[in-house]
């Protein structure tokens, strides 16, 4: 796996991947598993993926980013498996000559990931229930779950 990993994400490694003497700004985004007031006792999220397509989609996505910000260097890793609350599920680093490009490229990548990269998550809750997350708000869970719960992602938004 290139962009997918089952290991804890290393920001240091990601930053090293994009480091270069011509870059004046590096923007880092971490998406972390959340158990906020809107969640119902989320202890972890189980991430699964269509792994071959994830790699293909990341290749296309990073090519799109390169076309928009040719001077930027971007690295991204998505973690799969069971990720406890507070740990990162995705890490993105975008380095560019100037900060505006770094911010824009980093934002572009996370937004495109949410739109294009075939990854799914299942909330694992303290009461033992498990709920598939549908970011579009349609009910998805196998066990009975209030409709109001189906909109929540359990992660950063």
């Amino acid at each position, binding site marked *: 796996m290139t962009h997918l990993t089952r290991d804890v994400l290393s920001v240091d490694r990601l930053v090293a991947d994009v480091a270069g003497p011509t870059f004046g700004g590096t923007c880092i985004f971490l*998406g972390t598993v959340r158990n906020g007031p809107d969640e119902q006792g989320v202890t972890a999220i189980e*991430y*699964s*993926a*269509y792994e*071959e*397509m994830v790699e*293909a*989609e990341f290749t296309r996505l990073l090519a799109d980013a390169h076309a928009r910000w040719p001077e930027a260097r971007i690295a991204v890793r*998505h973690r799969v498996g069971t990720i406890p609350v507070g740990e990162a*599920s*995705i890490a993105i680093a975008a380095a560019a000559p100037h900060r505006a490009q770094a911010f824009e490229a980093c934002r572009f990548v*996370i937004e495109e*990931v*949410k*739109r*294009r*990269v*075939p*990854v*799914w*998550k*299942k909330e694992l809750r303290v009461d033992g229930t498990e709920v*598939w*997350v*549908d*970011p*579009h708000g*349609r009910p*998805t869970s*196998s066990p009975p779950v209030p409709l109001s719960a189906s909109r929540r*992602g359990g*992660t*950063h938004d």
Partner: protein
Amino acid sequence: MPATVRVRFFARYAELMGCAEATVSLSLPATVGDVVQRLREDFPGARALPERPLAAVNLKQAKLDARVQDGDEVALLPPIAGG
């Protein structure tokens, strides 16, 4: 002309289908939508799938009217929830 495509299921769809993949045989020309229809006929679990599921052909998102060829890999994708 007969064709065989491999169909893969993920996340909730794999749970509904009770399997992670299936093989579908159909006559060409055929579309992704034809593959979904054939699944509905052959697999009870497929009837619980959405009418128009998100799909991919050979690792790229594809519309339901996209053509399939012999040997293609079709995937039915639940709503994407990455990040």
